[in-house]
């Protein structure tokens, strides 16, 4: 009897195949990106969740809207097993707003007409697939309250 491969449906997920098609070679970060994509679309029910690649930093990142009228947010999935340095974190802001490649072809991550929320959202994905979301701003960002 052929053994059922429980995870085969996930390995053939169209978004995973899309992320792998960019050829970045970072399987841990791609796995974190897929889990974040599924969390945003299936659990948080965010809209317009799009996949983008950043060749500079060799990462997959996402753009999405919480609600229809909300500004676009840049979400960067990061596996907890591959911590970044201050140097890499400081490059995330500019790298994810430059022209990036998406499935629809080479285009800007966000168009100039769209309202983009300041900073980036880091999705820190643990070994147990739990996700911690942190908002990151460049410089000293004073609390609103």
């Amino acid at each position, binding site marked *: 009897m052929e053994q059922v491969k429980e995870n085969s449906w996930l390995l053939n997920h169209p978004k995973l195949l899309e992320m792998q098609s960019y050829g970045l070679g970072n399987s841990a970060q791609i796995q974190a990106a897929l889990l974040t994509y599924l969390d945003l679309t299936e659990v948080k029910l965010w809209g317009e969740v799009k996949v983008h690649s950043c060749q500079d930093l060799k990462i997959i990142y996402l753009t999405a809207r919480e609600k229809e009228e909300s500004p676009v947010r840049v979400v960067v999935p990061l596996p907890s097993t591959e911590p970044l340095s201050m140097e890499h974190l400081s490059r995330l802001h500019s790298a994810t707003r430059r022209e990036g490649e998406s499935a629809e072809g080479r285009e800007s991550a966000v168009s100039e007409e769209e309202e983009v929320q300041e900073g980036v959202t880091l999705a820190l994905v643990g070994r147990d697939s739990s996700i911690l979301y*942190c908002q990151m701003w460049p410089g000293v960002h004073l609390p609103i309250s």
Partner: protein
Amino acid sequence: MSKGKIQAVAQGGVCGALVWRAEGKWSQRPVHISAGEMGVCSDVYRLRVEWRVVGGLVGALPVQPRQSGQLGLPLHLSPEELSHLLEKGVLELEQETPPDDVITREQETRAAVFGDLWENGFTLTSGLKYGADYLVYQGDPALVHSCFLALVLPWKQPIATLTSLCRVGSKVVKALLLCSVEKGVVQYQTLEWDPIL
């Protein structure tokens, strides 16, 4: 109000310095800094109010020695606070012990971060209780809560504790401030747990 430079006793190596004087003369009388204290001629008070350097009282109170909730003189100044006050010409070292000849890059980075945040109007104290390097306040620590946990990091070193520090920060309602120096310029990244997500 006493004028002139504040006298401190230097401790060798990276231990900083101790300030003993209160009310214009060497004193072992109990000194407790509290909010609303006015008109006290105390070097410890001057450091806090005029120079936004809090330090840490490390001595036992003679009237209440068997407790550590309230401490008295001397005031301990960290190496960053000491170098900052010497640079500003506020301190006069009463007794010098030979300092370490080698200043590490970490010490240089910490001093640069301390000085830059101080110049931007913040008050800094030790962040040891929260696993960070500094607690950063927008006012006197006796009057306001800190708004940041500051972590001083090498520019190119991976940050292994980012997840745990974000969780600590969210629990104690403080943002995480990552600080580093790159080409002589202090760089910051502010992280805050996202309540929406």
